[in-house]
């Protein structure tokens, strides 16, 4: 891991398009500003890691096979459609 020291208002460039700025420092909390292109997601690490864990758990509970009935017929392509907000309810 690269470790850099920055003072207030100093910043770091990651690649050509992402900038991290030290906005404020207050005892044990650092406020960071992130400038990135619109298509780049920025998330707190613990949130990202929670999603990673949930995805991995979902995949491993599937492979154990014991949680759902045994596969009977073959799989078919799932029908994926946009939500139709005006569809009347049955």
């Amino acid at each position, binding site marked *: 891991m690269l470790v850099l020291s920055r003072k207030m208002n100093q910043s770091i460039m990651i690649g050509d398009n992402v900038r991290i700025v030290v906005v404020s420092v207050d005892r044990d909390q650092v406020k960071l500003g992130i400038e990135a*292109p*619109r*298509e*780049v*997601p920025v*998330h*707190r690490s613990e*949130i*990202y890691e*929670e*999603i*990673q*864990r*949930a*995805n*991995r*758990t*979902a*995949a491993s*509970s*599937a*492979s*154990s*096979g*014991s*949680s*759902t*009935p045994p*596969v*009977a*017929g*073959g*799989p*078919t*392509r*799932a*029908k*994926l*459609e*946009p*939500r139709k*907000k005006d569809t009347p309810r*049955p």
Partner: protein
Amino acid sequence: MMSAEPDASATDLPIEVESPRFGAISYTQSEIIRFPWGLPGFTSLRNWLALTLESQPSYIWLQSLDDLKVAIPTANPYHLFEDYDPKLPSYAAAALDIHSPSDFTLLSVLVVTAAAAEMTINLMAPIVINVHTWRARQVLLENSAYSVRTPVPRKAVQEEAASSAI
């Protein structure tokens, strides 16, 4: 080759693979859902199929084509939670070229535990699929009130399946 048409038929020939979960699967290129960034936890797995079984119509399985051992159960969150209508972060629209509600659909990852009658669904990080380009990305609704592990009574999935079969 004397044909004047482009050789489009070659890319639509069925491909056969053997998956540990589903056995033999036959698919064509046009059925592949492309995740250019993979998924958190599976960032190198970019090519997936969305499959269902007749016996479990409410489960939509994302089967990886890059690692056939990986299959992730998901469900349509709109069917289970009528009011679910999250505001997608701007990177979703930018990454997937989405401009209107008719451009995309959502799938939410299910965690199914063997013992419990309950399962949980990840409403905080829906998988967004562009239904025109078939590119997808899982997006994190970080500042929403949605939970990664929202309980879904298994009964609700079965009822939803029953009503959709009518």
